[in-house]
């Protein structure tokens, strides 16, 4: 504890612990590879995602024709479609989670910090929204406004923020009792400054864990909607839509289920391992 070197922040400590967690690091590497593949999809195959190979309908993986994962019933390349579906699924996961993050953290932190009547009203709003049958709500939106992918992001995000708001509010209530918040009031900070400088940064750990667990949840919801035929629209696709298509041909063309389903499962596992690792790394119990 001597010398003038800058100290280790709690974040740096957490990163060090996270990097020592083998499961989490492996998951991060695999996830990075998946993201890379998904981003580079158009350059990895000569086929377009909506291009129909009339000669090869529903064939198993065939390196000769560069259909690495085979083709679907109408002759579209499954490799490209799986990666493209991954783009959509991951994008839905990330964007919807960001939407829920923005609304949930603000809502929860404000309600928790201000407390009293404001808190009561804000949390009753959350309770009421909770009580709405969410699938029904999304289905209604889709039916009324058509199958718009942007709308899908917003709809899922707008549902997910409720959990986030509750978690953040609980944490804020606990933080508010801490003396450093009182010290900030005594130091003359305004309420927005206290929420911005003290409450939110101290929430980020919990929020980060929750985000890594929300992304796979959102991906699953999107898959479910696609499974119901309410997700992305043809010729665009997502992992959920692909799994749905594949499931219908499980006997004749098992590869059309196997590849997208494996990608989906591996991605979900990765997020969960990262979430667990983050939680352990940020957990202050072992310090």
């Amino acid at each position: 504890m001597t010398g003038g070197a800058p100290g280790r922040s709690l974040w740096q400590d957490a990163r060090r612990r996270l990097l020592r967690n083998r499961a989490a690091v492996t998951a991060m590497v695999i996830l990075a590879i998946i993201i890379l593949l998904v981003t580079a999809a158009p350059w990895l195959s000569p086929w377009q995602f909506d291009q129909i190979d009339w000669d090869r309908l529903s064939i198993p993986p065939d390196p000769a024709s560069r259909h690495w994962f085979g083709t679907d019933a109408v002759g579209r390349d499954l490799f490209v479609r799986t990666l493209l579906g991954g783009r959509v699924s991951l994008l839905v996961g990330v964007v919807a989670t960001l939407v829920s993050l923005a609304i949930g953290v603000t809502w929860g932190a404000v309600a928790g910090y201000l407390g009293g009547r404001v808190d009561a009203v804000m949390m009753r709003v959350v309770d009421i929204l909770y009580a709405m049958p969410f699938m029904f709500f999304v289905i209604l939106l889709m039916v009324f406004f058509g199958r718009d992918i942007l709308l899908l992001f917003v709809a899922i995000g707008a549902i997910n923020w409720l959990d986030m708001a509750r978690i953040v509010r609980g944490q804020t209530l606990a933080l508010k009792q801490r003396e450093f918040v009182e010290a900030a009031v005594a130091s003359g900070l305004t309420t927005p400054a206290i929420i911005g400088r003290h409450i939110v940064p101290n929430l980020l750990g919990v929020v980060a864990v929750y985000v890594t667990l929300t992304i796979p949840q959102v991906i699953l919801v999107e898959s479910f909607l696609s499974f119901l035929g309410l997700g992305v629209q043809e010729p665009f696709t997502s992992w959920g839509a692909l799994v749905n298509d594949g499931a219908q041909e499980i006997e004749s063309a098992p590869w059309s289920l196997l590849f997208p389903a494996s990608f989906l499962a591996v991605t979900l596992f990765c997020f969960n391992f990262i979430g667990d690792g983050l939680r352990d790394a940020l957990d202050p119990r072992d310090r």
Partner: protein
Amino acid sequence: MSAATQPSERTESLLQVRDLEVHFTLPGDGWLARRRVVRAVDGVCFNLRAGRTLGVVGESGCGKSTLARALLGLVPATGGSIRLAGEEITGRTAAALRPLRRKVQMVFQDPFASLDPRMTLGQIIAEPLRALNPELDAAERRRRVRHLMERVGLAAGWIDRYPHEFSGGQCQRIGIARALACGPELLVCDEPVSALDVSVQAQIVNLLMELQRELGLALLFIAHDLAVVRQVSHEVMVMYLGRQAELAPAELLYRSPRHPYTRALLDSVPLPDPERERARQAVPLAGDPPSPLSPPAGCAFHTRCPRAQARCRQSRPALHPLEEGRQLACHFPLPVQ
């Protein structure tokens, strides 16, 4: 603020507290239940001059921490008045309080919990400067922070480190540096050493006394440790269930307490001396302090007081001045020793 070690009797008090009341309304059980009122602070009066220390002692639930928070405007006063350097604090909005914040700062009990774990020492100590002296630029702020750190016994090279890398005693020094950043005239210390190890307590007590001498600070020193309070205080106030039992110059109070509760407190402190400890007679007080939710009628202390009589159960004793600047609220005070 020149050296104020010996303020003349005529100087006006820096802090004047009159009949201060802080009552909380607790939410009842359920919607229609009757709301309960806790009289956390109930009629406290004192003056505090620059360069002096008022010690506040009492057991848990006596309202001493609420008193501290009321002085900083962290909880609203529900009655009475607090005048700081002639200006009324009570009834102000947060914005109207801000200019006064430069004059009064607080040192907290828990040295770790009172520092934001995500901030560096430099950010923590600079926070009051940032909020209350916005005219300073970053370089000037940093210069001042380094100076403050050295003043409280921290190496200036630690400015970019984080609180979790330091011990309790060092964290308390960080808290003190933050409290001093804006050059306050009054420092409210809420149990500043009770969370620290015995061998470190003395360092912090000495530091606070040194700073007081040097800067002419007025200190309000809250603690449950009567020996520490005697060490730092010029005057001492004893509180019981939100009420002021006795207030007197420290030497007088410890030599000749006149409230039976003060006597009992003093007699309860275990002494680091095997012979005296073993020769101790009966336990001074039976039972626990009553809940502040339902304080006894009359004198709040009558349920545990060895001298209580019928009158104590019926009427609440008023605070009245006695000899040598003593204030007392008791119907049947102990004789002067």
